[in-house]
């Protein structure tokens, strides 16, 4: 066959198959199972049926760490998906891999799609935006820690269930009362590093790490052995010794105890809402995360946990246009409002929050707006914008180990936090070396 014939036949094939092959496929890898997995599948289905140009194929790739690993391995093999869900802890890893990702602001620019980063609420936007204001990944599911209260447990101990729990000082008194009444699990927690160090620091407007918590450079060092953190961890250690704080594990193992009605107070993500609502056979309350009285600047705002969507490099322009449409669809007020109401994750845009309020959701479900208020009352500072640290998953592991030493009574808060700082800094230096 000569060139001309080949060209003709190709054109003919293209003409014939054109309308059929017009649907561009978009690969989307996420980390959700169970109810969350179903909700994501529903979102994808809604997007696919809302237009005919693109088809999104969603695939579950394991938990957060496994999904990130799958994405990295796929990139190394040249088989990366278009969109990869990465938890907030992996943000620094993704940001440093400039050649592997396509920043969201650029994606939107290239695709000519409408995109306003200011539509996102400050604390969400800040986490995924460079110091120059360029948004690198698309916020997706974001939550923040709050205090969950078992009202029945308080009443059984002879405590007014509406008692003020806004500060740790007041919580201390209530824990005393619970212990005196013979309650054997007054307080438990999930995600200790995230809640009792990362959020504690932001909430009291003190740095977690130098260089604006890592936003301003890779030469960042942990600063978790400061006064506020040491005081808080020492207090928690005392509570642990006296049996007022019961440590259940590094992740959200404490959730099972709280939902079973065994623990009175529980610090956990606002996204614990769905599970607690469906399982708890007692009256419960959502309260803002407590802070310490007398610390200047407290309460500032808490920071987020959860994941964002990264667009991977090396795909075709058509696919990128589809990705832009898909991401804009996901962050549209209707989709976000529904997501927020179904899961307890934050409404990531102000519009989604407003829509939820208009729909009367907060009135029907009191307490569901606590997290939103806690995040949005104050404009985030450089201490409360978020964290951007390399090897952060491992650093959290180190913090877990050191905190366990405090809860077990093996180390003092000062010893544990200074050791965590030193060990974490070594990992930060290695990350700096790998990404210079």
């Amino acid at each position, binding site marked *: 066959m000569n060139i001309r014939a080949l060209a003709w036949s190709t054109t003919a094939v293209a003409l014939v198959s054109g309308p059929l092959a017009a649907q561009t496929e978009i690969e989307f890898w996420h980390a959700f199972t169970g109810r969350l997995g179903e909700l994501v599948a529903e979102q994808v289905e809604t997007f696919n049926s809302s237009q005919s140009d693109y088809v999104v194929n969603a695939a579950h790739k394991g938990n957060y*760490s496994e999904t990130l*690993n799958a994405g*990295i391995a796929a*990139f*190394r093999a040249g088989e990366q998906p278009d969109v990869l869900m990465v938890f907030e802890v992996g943000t620094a*890893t993704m940001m*440093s*891999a400039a*050649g*592997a990702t396509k920043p969201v602001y650029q994606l939107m620019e290239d695709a000519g799609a409408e995109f306003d980063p200011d539509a996102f609420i400050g604390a969400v936007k800040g986490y995924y935006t460079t110091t120059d204001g360029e948004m690198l990944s698309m916020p997706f599911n974001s939550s923040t820690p709050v205090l969950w209260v078992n009202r029945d447990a308080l009443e059984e101990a002879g405590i007014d269930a509406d008692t003020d729990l806004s500060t740790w000082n007041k919580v201390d008194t209530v824990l005393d009362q619970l212990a005196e009444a013979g309650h054997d*699990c007054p307080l438990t927690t999930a995600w200790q590093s995230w809640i009792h160090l990362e959020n504690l620091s932001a909430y009291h407007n003190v740095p977690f790490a130098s260089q604006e918590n890592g936003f301003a450079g890779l030469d960042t060092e942990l600063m978790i052995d400061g006064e506020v953190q040491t005081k808080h961890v020492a207090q928690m250690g005392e509570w642990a010794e006296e049996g007022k704080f019961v*440590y*259940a*594990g*590094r992740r959200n*193992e404490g959730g*099972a*105890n709280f939902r*079973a009605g*065994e623990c009175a107070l529980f610090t956990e993500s606002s996204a614990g809402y769905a599970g607690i609502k469906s399982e708890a056979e007692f009256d419960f309350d959502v309260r803002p995360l407590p802070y310490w009285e007398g610390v200047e600047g407290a309460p500032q705002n808490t920071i987020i946990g959860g994941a964002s969507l990264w667009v991977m490099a090396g795909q075709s322009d058509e696919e990128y246009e589809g990705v832009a449409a898909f991401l804009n669809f996901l962050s549209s007020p209707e989709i976000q409002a529904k997501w927020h109401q179904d899961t307890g994750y934050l409404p990531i845009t102000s519009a989604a929050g407003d829509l939820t309020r208009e729909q009367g959701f907060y009135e029907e479900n009191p307490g569901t707006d606590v997290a939103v208020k806690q995040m949005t009352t104050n404009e985030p500072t450089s201490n409360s914008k978020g964290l951007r640290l390399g*090897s952060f*998953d*491992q650093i959290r*592991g180190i913090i*877990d*180990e*050191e905190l*366990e*030493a405090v*809860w*077990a009574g*093996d180390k003092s808060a000062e010893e544990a936090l200074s050791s965590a700082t030193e*060990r974490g800094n*070594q*990992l930060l230096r*290695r990350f700096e*070396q*790998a*990404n*210079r």
Partner: protein
Amino acid sequence: MEKRVKFKGILLPLLLVLPQLLVTAVFFFYPAGQAIWQSLFIPDPFGLSMRYVGLGNFEFLLSDPYYRASFVTTAVFSLLVTLVSMGVALYLAVLADRLIKGSGTYRTLLIWPYAVAPAVAGVLWLFMFNTRVGVVTWYLGLLGYDWNHVLNESEAMGLVVIASAWGRISYNFLFFLAGLQAIPRSVIEAAAIDGAHFWTRFRTIVFPLLSPTTFFLLVVNIVYAFFETFGVIHTITSGGPQQATTTLVYKVFADGFVGQDLGSSAAQSVILLVVVGALTIVQFKFIERRVHY
């Protein structure tokens, strides 16, 4: 007297061992070579750049007291898993060997746990010892013992050892039982007629005759405790509390897959390779001498 086949020339013998050589090359020499090569670099996770650091990764590791501590953890863990799984298996095998009625059922039940995947075994044990709802924890509580492997380091170690050894007992049991049944009855009966009690017979006749099996199991179990217990540790303790159950292999996973620190992870694999190599040489050089085939 040894039997040996003598080949003429080199081509045929080479051809005969070629499949084995190929398998070793593809599944051992190639990955091991890659690990050694990678251990000299600090790469970024996506493979976009690599920084040559010479022996920097090894220096970083060996200067870390927590890494050095995980050698001790690994040694304690492997020793305990091997002792528990072999000891219990031998005890059960000796009992099963004496059984006449119902030995089939007894054996089947004992072999069963081997079919349970390590991660599932981990979850099973975790449920039983759950600090708040575990059934064993509850019974221990009745006895006045407050079980809390989430914070107590020795309890955590105990739990991962039991969970790791449990499935392994079946495997060892099978080999011990086969070994016991291969011992000629006449030898034991002769000793019995001479007035040797059970324990004397076991010590002087059965155990020495069982030594090839024991040695084989020793090697296999130590390798198991080193490399295959990862699933159990991951599901039960994730290496905690503090670093009480972080074995060398678990650390390779934590640094490589959780931390994306591939350089350090590769260096750890190389160190592990050397350790296991040395261990195997020691076993074959010193312990095998006491084995009677």
